[in-house]
């Protein structure tokens, strides 16, 4: 059997398989609870607890944030770790080992982006601080309004990427070097892990932990949620930035 024929057969089989699969899934979907009903099985004591008890217990008005950073914090810790290990994997894949000379790096750099383009520079000079501000805002208000570390971190990362694209790597690395990246990420994650470890340990062993809900509605409230949001934001932004930089040209310069 030649290759084309085999491919064809494979394609036909896959198509049939997926059609059957979709059919099954659709059939199954007809048997699922209907959308939007308050009587559905998923509207049980769990969301009720999150919404009703969450704000008072954690001090976070946003029940989603309360859930992901307090009740189901282990998931979220894992999630941050996913980001982290993804970045590590990207490093493993793309990091240029050995000492690529400065010139080559710059040359690669230039191939990808118009460095020192005046329009870009000027526009981004205005835009970037705003983006940073917005990111920080989203992060800091994660427990009060929609948002949180992940969204905030993503926005911060967008700011970094804008800056990088406008001013080039060399300029960016004036404040964001590889070493800084590593230290900040490690520190943020360590803090995250340590803090959560502490609360897990305390909580599970029934000990009194120091965190307090504070006064709900204030920025400085909700115990560890705010610091954790900040940590998450740092991790997310750093990770996205580093991934970008890796995919772009294989590593930090310094």
């Amino acid at each position, binding site marked *: 059997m030649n290759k084309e024929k085999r*491919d064809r057969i494979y*394609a036909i089989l*896959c*198509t049939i*398989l*997926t*059609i059957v*699969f*979709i059919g099954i*899934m*659709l059939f*199954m*979907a*007809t048997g*699922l609870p*209907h*959308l*939007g*009903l*308050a009587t*559905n099985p*998923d*509207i049980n004591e*769990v*969301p*009720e607890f*999150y*919404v*009703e008890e969450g*704000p*008072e217990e954690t001090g976070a*008005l*946003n*029940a*989603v944030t309360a*859930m*992901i950073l307090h009740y*189901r914090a282990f*998931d*979220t810790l894992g*999630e941050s770790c*996913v*980001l982290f290990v*993804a*970045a590590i*994997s*990207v490093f493993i*894949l*793309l990091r240029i080992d050995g000492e690529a000379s400065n010139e080559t790096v710059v040359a690669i750099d230039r191939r990808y982006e118009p460095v020192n383009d005046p329009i870009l520079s000027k526009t981004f000079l205005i835009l970037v601080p705003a983006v940073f501000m917005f990111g920080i805002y989203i992060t800091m208000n994660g427990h*009060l*309004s*929609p948002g949180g570390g*992940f969204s905030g971190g993503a926005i911060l990362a967008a700011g970094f990427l804008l800056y990088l694209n406008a001013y080039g790597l060399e300029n960016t690395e004036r404040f964001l070097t590889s070493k800084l990246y590593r230290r900040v990420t490690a520190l943020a994650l360590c803090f995250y892990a340590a803090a959560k470890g502490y609360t897990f340990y305390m909580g599970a062993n029934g000990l009194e932990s120091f965190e307090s809900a504070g006064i*709900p*509605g204030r920025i400085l409230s909700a115990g560890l949620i705010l610091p954790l949001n900040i940590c998450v934001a740092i991790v*997310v932004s750093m*990770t996205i930035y580093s*991934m970008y930089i*890796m*995919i772009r040209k294989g590593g930090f310069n310094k």
Partner: protein
Amino acid sequence: MTYFFADLPEYAAMILFGIGLSILMLAKNLVKKIIGLNIMDTSVFLFLAAKGYVEGTVAPIVTAEELGRIDSALYSNPVPAGLVLTGIVVSVSVTAVLLSLVVRLNEEFHTLDIDEIIHILRKRDREDL
């Protein structure tokens, strides 16, 4: 039939999932495969998001004034939202890793076609022996 239109997101999610899956299986081009993966993941998010909503409710963010007398029936389910959030992050991470893999594979084999890559490897095998 009453619920058909209400349930539409569910069906859409299932169909999308199937489409994503078929792309993942059928597409030769690795980037297309990644797109398929994202479609698949997105369909799940769609499904979850649709599940989280309850008719006539708002997002589960209370105001400071309400504290102490919150009625959970007024708010939609926060759990799917959390799951979607996590799912998105995972999906993003995986996509990043996959993309960087594609970059490396392209450097190594100068092609994005997975079959061709396997073909090249088999040829190498034969040369080895």
